[in-house]
């Protein structure tokens, strides 16, 4: 009843191809954006910005990148952390070595560098797939782990690859407080998410999905697998690289290579699996889930344990986290391989019929 599309007719293809063709959806998204830009800053305290919202925004961006590669183009990657690192350290180098380099430009250049590296490490995808491709991406991961730790040039001769930045500003806006950081990340994420959605519903997105679904047929109808796969690696690494730069500059302010280790790669992969492969919205769901889960566990497990008269140590919580993560991965893979995004769209389908059962 609430969600019916009665009376919403499309009279042009442009209307039909909107991102949110159903009016209720449009209102929802606009409301959400207004709330995010204006409402949240009024309601939320510093801790929530720092601990939940900013990581969520940055990791959503990274998850978008990974989803483009894994979900839309079907190329598995276990090396996303490496590209975050490339983005972060490249942006760092542009930032400190070039006098007066604007912050945004450093980020974009960091992303572009990451895209180039991504194309290079994407070359194996032209020959192999599946596990073998995963190994190639791991090669990227371990290489960057080492490069940023041991090759002093990249870190301006800092010890053990640890660098820090300060005094970030765009024109005259000083990005210092958690609120500033939040708004900056939110703005960037909105722009990039829109771009991602546009790409995935245009020709380039269809090329990616064609390669994912059946690359022999794709070649026959005139899609070049090389271009499609490498462009997926490039765009994905660009997004992940910018997320890496944001993670280092904005969230951490000072970081070392371990922030972008193979654990981070796995974390990003889990985000897109749980959130929904091949879905822009799924990337957000996945990121939210993975960011909130540890915090939720931290709050609830001791309480739950208390009910049964058990005390659960912090070590116990981190162990439980591992178990719950693993179990959830398996659960989603078995029950809903398309992740939370599919649950969401199924829910919406039911909502369209509500209150009727079918």
């Amino acid at each position, binding site marked *: 009843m609430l969600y019916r599309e009665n009376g919403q007719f499309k009279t042009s293809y442009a209307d039909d191809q909107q991102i949110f063709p159903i009016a209720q959806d449009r209102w929802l998204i606009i409301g959400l954006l207004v709330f995010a830009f204006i409402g949240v800053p009024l309601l939320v305290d510093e801790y929530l910005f720092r601990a939940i919202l900013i990581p969520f925004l940055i990791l959503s961006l990274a998850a978008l990148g990974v989803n483009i590669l894994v979900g839309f183009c079907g190329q598995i990657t276990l090396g996303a952390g490496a590209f975050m690192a490339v983005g972060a350290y490249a942006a760092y180098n542009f930032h400190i070595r070039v006098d007066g380099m604007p912050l945004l430009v450093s980020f974009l250049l960091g992303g572009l560098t990451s895209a180039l590296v991504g194309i290079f490490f994407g070359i194996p995808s032209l020959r192999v797939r599946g596990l073998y491709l995963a190994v190639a991406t791991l090669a990227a991961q371990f290489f960057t782990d080492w490069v940023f730790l041991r090759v002093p040039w990249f870190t301006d001769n800092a010890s053990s690859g640890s660098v820090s930045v300060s005094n970030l500003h765009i024109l005259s806006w000083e990005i210092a407080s958690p609120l500033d950081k939040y708004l900056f990340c939110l703005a960037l994420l909105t722009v990039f998410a829109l*771009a991602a959605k546009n790409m995935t519903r245009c020709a380039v997105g269809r090329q990616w999905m064609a390669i994912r679904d059946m690359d022999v047929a794709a*070649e026959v109808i005139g899609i070049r697998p090389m271009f499609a796969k490498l462009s997926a690696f490039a765009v994905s690494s660009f997004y992940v690289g910018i997320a890496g730069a944001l993670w280092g500059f904005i969230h951490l302010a000072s970081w070392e290579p371990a922030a972008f280790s193979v654990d981070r790669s796995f974390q990003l992969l889990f985000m897109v699996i749980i959130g929904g492969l091949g879905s822009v919205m799924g990337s957000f769901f996945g990121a939210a889930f993975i960011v909130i889960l540890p915090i939720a566990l931290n709050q609830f497990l001791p309480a739950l344990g208390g009910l049964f008269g058990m005390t659960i140590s912090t070590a116990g919580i981190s162990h439980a986290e591992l178990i719950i993560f693993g179990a959830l991965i398996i659960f989603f893979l078995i029950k809903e391989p398309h992740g939370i995004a599919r649950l969401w769209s199924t829910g919406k389908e039911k909502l369209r019929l509500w209150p009727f059962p079918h």
Partner: protein
Amino acid sequence: MSREIGEVILDLKNVSLAFGGVKALTDISFDVREHEIRAIIGPNGAGKSSMLNVINGVYRPQQGEIVLRGRRFARMNPYKAAQAGISRTFQNIALFKGMSVIDNIMTGRNLKIRTNLLLQALWWGPARREELAHRAKVEEVIDFLEIQHIRKTPVGRLPYGLQKRVDLGRALAMEPSILLLDEPMAGMNVEEKQDMCRFILDVNDQFGTTIVLIEHDMGVVMDISDRVVVLDYGKKIGDGDPDAVRSNPEVVSAYLGAGH
């Protein structure tokens, strides 16, 4: 059939193809004239699909050459074939199961899309106009094949007959000059076959597309094709118009067994 048949547009000369010790095609030569409907028939395993795969560049023959509009192709690959205006359907419907009908057919427009990634990301001017123009073209194909009602359905959920139609739609969206159809009516009932025949004839009639068609249903072949090539065990045993081929004793014995 009301179209005027033109000059030779595709010429296959002495094509031989082998997989290891298995000879799929032996010294096959035939030509295809513009605007005609050319059928390739033969018992199972005769090499018909291999023939299409050679034309299309999916297989590379050990010997022989493909001459397309007078241009000799030493190495054909699927991409070059697509660029040269050859499109095809598949015996096993190689559709993109994760995408909707519209998106599947839109992939057929890929070669005609000129704007780059960046413009598409911005949904800016040229990219937007191009996307909408191609959407209009695809809708024409959808109208032609009468599949408007399922245009947003993910292809994996469609019944077999409709999937075959979408496969044809995707090939048509490429606006091919030569259309290769690999058993387009396999697994269809009488009504579906009639529909498919109608579409094939309309494509040939309205757009002048040359059609090379593999088909088992003799009735269909005799009815709609202009000329027929008969293969058996990788060799050509007949070539000519349907009546001539039907009365060719070699063809008869290949199909019905030597005792006839």
